C-alpha cells in the first residue's frame, strides 16, 4: 500500500479536500481524519488544513488545540512523524505548542487573498527537502490572522537554529522577520501560512506548491524506487 497522508478535519476546516486532491495528484493516498477521533490510524504523515476550525472562536486554533485528535498528533510528532500545518493548521500548531510564537491579525487589518512570492530559507524540513536555499516560490495566501509574532528570544533562536523555512519576499501582513513558515528543530513539524496545496495545477495559477507537497510525499516514500 502506498504511503498515506492523514488530513485532519475540524468543524470549520475548509481546505481538506484541496489537500487530498494535491496528495492524490502527486501519487500519494490521503485519508480524512475527524477531529473527535483520538487515534490517527495507520498514516505516514499528518496535515492540518486551512479553514476556520471551531469557527476560529476565541482565537484561531485556540479550541482546536483541545480536539481529541490533537493528543494523537502531538504524540505522532514527538515520535518524529511528519506534521504539516497549513494556514489555520499553522495557527493550531502554535496554539498547541508544537511550534513557537503566535499568529496575530494582519497589520493593516486586511483579509489577504492573493499570490505572494516566498523564499525557501531552510531545506531541513519535511516540506522543503531537496529545495535549494533562496529558491523563490509563488503561492497563494488566504488569511486574516497571518501576522507571525514571537518574543525577541524566540525570534533570535529561530534565526540562529535555521528554523525559518519560508520568508515573504515582500511582507504582506506585518509578520516578524518576514516569517511565512517555521519548523521544529527536528524538521518534522512545519507550519506555514501560504497554501501549497492550492498551487499544484497550472489551471489554477501555478505549480510551485507541488514542489513542497512533493517533498512531503518523498519524505514518506512516495515516488521512491521500489
Amino acid at each position, binding site marked *: 500500500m502506498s504511503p498515506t497522508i492523514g488530513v485532519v478535519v475540524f468543524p470549520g476546516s475548509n481546505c481538506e479536500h484541496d489537500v487530498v486532491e494535491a496528495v492524490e495528484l502527486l501519487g500519494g493516498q490521503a485519508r480524512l481524519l475527524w477531529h473527535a477521533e483520538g487515534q490517527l490510524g495507520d498514516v505516514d504523515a499528518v496535515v492540518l488544513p486551512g479553514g476556520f476550525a471551531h469557527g476560529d472562536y*476565541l*482565537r484561531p486554533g*485556540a*479550541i482546536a488545540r*483541545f480536539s481529541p485528535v490533537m493528543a494523537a498528533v502531538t504524540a505522532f510528532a514527538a515520535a518524529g512523524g511528519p506534521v504539516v500545518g497549513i494556514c489555520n493548521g499553522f495557527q493550531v500548531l*502554535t*496554539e498547541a505548542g508544537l511550534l513557537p*510564537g*503566535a499568529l*496575530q*491579525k*494582519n*497589520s*493593516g*487589518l486586511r483579509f489577504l487573498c492573493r499570490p505572494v512570492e516566498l523564499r525557501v530559507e531552510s531545506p531541513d524540513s519535511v516540506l522543503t527537502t531537496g529545495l535549494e536555499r533562496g529558491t523563490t516560490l509563488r503561492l497563494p495566501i488566504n488569511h486574516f490572522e497571518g*501576522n507571525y*509574532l*514571537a*518574543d525577541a528570544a524566540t525570534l533570535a533562536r529561530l534565526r540562529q537554529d535555521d528554523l525559518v523555512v519560508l520568508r515573504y519576499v515582500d511582507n504582506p501582513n*506585518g509578520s516578524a522577520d518576514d516569517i511565512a513558515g517555521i519548523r521544529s528543530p527536528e524538521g518534522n513539524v512545519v507550519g506555514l501560512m501560504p497554501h501549497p496545496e492550492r498551487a499544484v495545477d497550472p489551471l489554477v495559477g501555478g505549480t510551485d506548491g507541488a514542489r513542497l507537497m512533493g517533498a512531503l510525499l518523498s519524505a514518506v516514500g512516495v515516488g521512491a524506487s521500489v
Partner: protein
Amino acid sequence: MRFDAAVEIRTKEGIADPEGATIEAALPALGFADIGGLSVGKSIRLWVEAADEGAARARVEELCAALLANPVMEEASVSLAQAAPA
C-alpha cells in the same frame, strides 16, 4: 460557593493592536480628536464553584492560562464577586 467572574483579555504591552489603532485613527474625523489611547480586548463572563475567593481566582487564572488568553500576545485580569443567592 459560586462566584461570578469577569475576565478581561488585553493585548500585551508592546504587541501591535491593529484593530485598536484603526478605530483610533477614525476618531478625529468623527469629532473625537480629544480621545486616544484606544485598545481593543475581550471581555468574558463566567461563574466558578470554589471553596473561597482565593480558590476561585486560582481556578479562573488556570483557565486563562490554558485557553482564554494566549501568553505570547495577551494578558488576562480576573475580577470576582460572590454570586447572589438564587
